[in-house]
């Protein structure tokens, strides 16, 4: 097949997949419906403080797998649903930030700075419109970059990197994530180290399960879903519950919505916002392409750059940044939304997840089977069909569709989601906990997995109390097996060279960078502190 035929097959795989129902003789594929449902759910959870896209992805994944099964046919509907959630949540997060001064997702914090003042001035709807427009613009830009870059990066990696270099690249990414995410490089390294340790329990090539302390329950290693959902979701729920318990007497902030006349977003308004959106989209996309650096940093940078520009050009009668400037909302939302697409560049081209949403996409692929994100996906095989490549283009199609939904109906749904902020946490959190445990049981059909999940939940809670980010843990857990395999293979392939990680210039450069990144990040923090 030619590359264009691959693209077309991917598009067809989404539209002509198994039919769910037909409208006036036009068959509607199950993937299409799943993207739409995920998208709606994404907006709703994004708009609910205490929930976020990854939580919804985590809970729905095991349930979806048990519905669709472990066949390659399940990949597009399940991953389409997750992509829908991811896209919906990016715009949903701004709703509570703007209306109630409570960010729905951490990266929406900067949105409160100008969004809430706009609400206080009676421009709530306009603020939401600005947020929607900027968010979707940033996201679309980021997706275009993803679709353009991922295949080329993958081909580059596959043709220039040998086994030792691939191992060194994995080590570099992990070191980068440990250094960049969370409180400090030391905490990041502790988190990543724990993740590797847990990944190595019960696995390995020997016929004897290692590190099990003689317990047969550990013999198969920890189920991927139990470790990831435990640390990320159950840990977060425990932490939120503890916080809620401490703050149970705090007064709730009530906002009365008063709307004045000019709520519409005119073409002139958009023209004024575009420079801010464009700059933030580029910043967010660039940051998103590096694994581990989250959308919060992108939002902060986008806001700062936007503020500098705005301060130079502001007219007397316009509000400053932080006092309700629509440009502030636009700069933040475009930046944090443009992270999500670019974040999939390292996922699809290298198999390295960069953030929590990507973690769940990889988890989906690993659980279902038949699609292994990494350089081998983008093999444009002319002689026979490479099904993974078709899936990859199917995923791109799903992203574009979700974007179209965002452009067309997203704004309307988003503006009706204000109600979600009123869902009380003491009801929400136990529901999330119960759904997570149920979902784990549904997938693993084994009570041991539930106990593991709760155990990892406690670990996740402890990490949060000590301000250690659980993300390096999870990413290290996912990459642990890959690093070990590729290191073993590289060692064997070089004929047992113990210095395989430093004997080629490229591998050596990666290894040096892996060390430098940690020290540079320590130094930077010391300077900043």
């Amino acid at each position, binding site marked *: 097949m030619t590359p264009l035929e691959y693209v077309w097959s991917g598009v067809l795989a989404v539209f002509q997949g198994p039919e769910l129902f037909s409208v006036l003789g036009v068959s509607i594929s199950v993937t299409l419906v799943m993207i739409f449902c995920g998208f709606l759910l994404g907006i709703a959870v994004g708009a609910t403080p205490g929930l976020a896209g990854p939580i919804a992805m985590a809970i729905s994944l095991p349930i979806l797998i048990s519905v669709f099964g472990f066949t390659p046919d399940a990949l597009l509907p399940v991953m389409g649903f997750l992509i829908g959630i991811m896209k919906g949540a990016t715009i949903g997060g701004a709703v509570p930030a703007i209306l109630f001064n409570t960010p729905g997702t951490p990266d929406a914090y900067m949105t409160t700075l100008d969004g809430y003042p706009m609400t206080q001035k009676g421009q709530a709807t306009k603020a939401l419109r600005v947020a929607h427009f900027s968010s979707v613009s940033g996201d679309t830009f980021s997706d275009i970059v993803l679709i353009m870059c991922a295949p080329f990066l993958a081909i580059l990696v596959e043709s220039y990197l040998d086994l030792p270099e691939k191992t060194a690249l994995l080590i570099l990414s992990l070191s980068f994530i440990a250094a960049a995410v969370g409180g400090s490089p030391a905490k990041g390294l502790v988190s990543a180290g724990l993740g590797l340790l847990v990944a190595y329990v019960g696995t390995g090539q*020997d016929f004897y*399960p290692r590190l099990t302390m003689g317990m047969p329950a550990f013999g198969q*290693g920890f189920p991927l879903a139990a470790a990831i959902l435990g640390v990320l979701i159950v840990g977060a729920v425990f932490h939120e519950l503890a916080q809620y318990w401490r703050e149970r007497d705090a007064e709730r902030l009530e906002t009365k919505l008063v709307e004045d006349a000019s709520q519409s977003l005119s073409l002139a308004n958009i023209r004024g916002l575009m420079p801010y959106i464009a700059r933030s989209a580029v910043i967010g996309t660039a940051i998103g392409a590096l694994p581990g650096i989250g959308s919060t940093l992108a939002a902060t940078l986008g806001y700062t750059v936007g503020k500098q520009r705005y301060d130079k050009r502001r007219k007397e009668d316009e509000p400053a940044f932080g006092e309700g400037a629509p440009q502030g909302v636009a700069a933040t939302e475009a930046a944090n939304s443009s992270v999500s697409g670019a974040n999939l560049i390292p996922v699809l081209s290298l198999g390295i997840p960069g953030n929590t949403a990507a973690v769940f996409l990889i988890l989906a692929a690993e659980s279902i089977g038949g699609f292994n994100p990494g350089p081998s996906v983008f093999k444009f095989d002319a002689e026979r069909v490479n099904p993974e490549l078709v899936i990859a283009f199917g995923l791109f199609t799903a992203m574009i569709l979700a974007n179209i939904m965002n452009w067309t109906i997203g704004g309307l749904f988003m503006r009706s989601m204000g109600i979600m902020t009123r869902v009380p946490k003491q009801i929400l959190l136990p529901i999330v906990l119960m759904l997570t445990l149920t979902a784990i049981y549904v997938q693993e059909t084994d009570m041991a997995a539930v106990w593991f999940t709760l155990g990892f939940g406690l670990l996740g809670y402890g990490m949060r109390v000590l301000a250690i980010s659980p993300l390096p843990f999870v990413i290290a857990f996912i990459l642990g097996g890959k690093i070990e395999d590729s290191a073993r293979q590289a060692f064997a392939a070089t004929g047992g060279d113990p210095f395989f990680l430093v004997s080629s210039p490229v591998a050596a450069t990666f290894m040096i960078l892996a060390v430098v990144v940690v020290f540079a990040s320590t130094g930077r923090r010391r300077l900043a502190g």
Partner: protein
Amino acid sequence: MREFLRIAAATVLTVAVTVSANAADWIPPGPIKMMIAFRAGGGADTQARLIAEDLQERHGWEIIPENVTGKGGLNMANQLKGAAADGTVIGIAVTETFGYNMAAAPGAGMTPADFAGLTTTAGFQMGIVAKTDRGWASFADMVAAAEGGEQVRFGVMSPRLADLAYLLGKANNVTFNIVEVQGGRAVMDGVNAGDLDVGFMAGIQAQGVETGELVNLASALSAPLDQTPEAPTMETLGVPFNSDGQFVFVAPAGLDTTARDAIAGAIAAVVSDPETKAGGLVQRAFGGATVFSGQELDAVLQSEYEKAGELLTAASE
């Protein structure tokens, strides 16, 4: 071996057809858990799941497939060993699990005697395969390259195959860099991507060989490959061992004969019928069904287990 398989298959078919009235009436006491020792999504996993579907359709048995992977099937065997021997738990692995892998891991505390063999479903067309672009038309070309000082990366997907690759090198006075990867697909991906020079492939290479992209340098079996009959066998290359093996269904030891015959007969009938989903797949991917079951199968597993010791000794010399 081939002759033996043919006779075995014929016997089983006869047994399956004239299966006792008892076995035909057998009804499982509950849903049957089918433990699959392969990763979700691969050819082996698909085969098992299709068999489950076909059995469900034909006999109305409720079958719950579950992947229990790792340790060359020993994780699955370990769980199966402790399960109820009443026909409600069965497992699928390869014969290698009960032969070489159990022999190589005495610490796991399992022997084929802990299991009741049900039936094999299909064999593998295991070849030693390189990419045509690599420039080797035969096994001898590869050996010549290695003698000339080239490093040859030999991909394998199990410790037994690693031993065989090592012995192949030894018999031909060359050293291969033996790289163990996860599963046959990974070997093929590695060979295609140029990370590996050559590797064992258990039938997955058929399409590539047909289009001329890949080449079967040798048969890793006791018999020549169907697709490339001129490729030398292990024996011709000076190695008295081979990778003969089949997919095999087993149950915990102590399963009574009625249940054993009923399940084995039902599976054998499904895979031998090219009209079923599983039978169709077996035909396409593994070149047709290879079924032998009952005590004959037990004997095969036991003898593979005993023979494994010889290979282990030879490879550690």
